[in-house]
């Protein structure tokens, strides 16, 4: 199996919604650092958090998070 990584469009969605990281963090109920590290793909969120983030933007979770195939197959 190729190496799969999690990509996200969280920063774009947040900017479009006119929210700061702190404001989004307050909305979802996590720390600002969590939002920051998810955006920078340093931290892989749990399914619960991914769904909560998608709900905050009223978008399906697949539009915010997607898989990147690093194997190139």
């Amino acid at each position, binding site marked *: 199996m190729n190496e799969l990584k999690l990509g996200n469009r969280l920063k774009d969605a947040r900017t479009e919604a006119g929210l*700061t*990281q*702190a404001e989004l*963090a*307050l909305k979802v*109920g*996590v*720390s*600002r*650092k*969590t*939002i*920051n*590290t998810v955006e*920078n793909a*340093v*931290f892989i*969120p*749990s399914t619960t*958090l991914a769904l909560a983030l998608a709900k905050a933007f009223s978008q399906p979770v697949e539009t915010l998070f997607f898989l990147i195939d690093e194997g190139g197959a």
Partner: protein
Amino acid sequence: MADEDILALARRVDMRRKFALMSVLLGLVVVGAGASQFTPGDPIEFSPLVLESVFGLGGAMIVIGGLVMLFSRTPPEARAGRLAMMRAERMRAKRNVAFLLMPLSLGLMLTGVIQALNKVGGALPIEHIQVFVVSAFVIFVLIFVALLSGQGLDRWSKPVLDDELSRQIRAKALGLGYLVMAGGLAGLVATSLFDRALTIDLIPVVAALGVGSASVRLFWLERAAGGDGE
């Protein structure tokens, strides 16, 4: 009341509670220092009047601090929702500095602890202050481990201080601490084969290294997680 007013009030209450807690802890230190005079071995004897004063002072500090803590109530608005999260974010920065100070405070106590262990090993009379330093070291190690593992967090601060990222960062930091401590213990077992006195001397060093490495790693990971944010 406006948000900033509530936060300012909560800050004042937090400050008052902090001073009260310090009073209780200092009171315990004073009482502990007084109680250490009853341990056998030290030729220095204090008069009953001095001991009564020490216990009186320590007891008063504990009672006053305890009463202040009991009657200092944070406004309910600051313990829920948005304001609670804002407070917790501010608290996070202060906690991070505390993580960096943990190995420093353990390091400062190490000399006294090793001296005490040497005296016990050489069957020499141990001084009261050394009994106290060893007790303080043990208590500090236990408190630091509890803090590093996220114990004792207020419920209102958990969405920020005990969220997914915080738990993952803590796990990484504690993992390093465990590695250092387990490696150190394995080294101590090897050392005990040829030098028992040195093994005993190194026990507090291994404990301090284990706790210290976890706290410094936690500090760096927290710092890195907050970088280039908005």
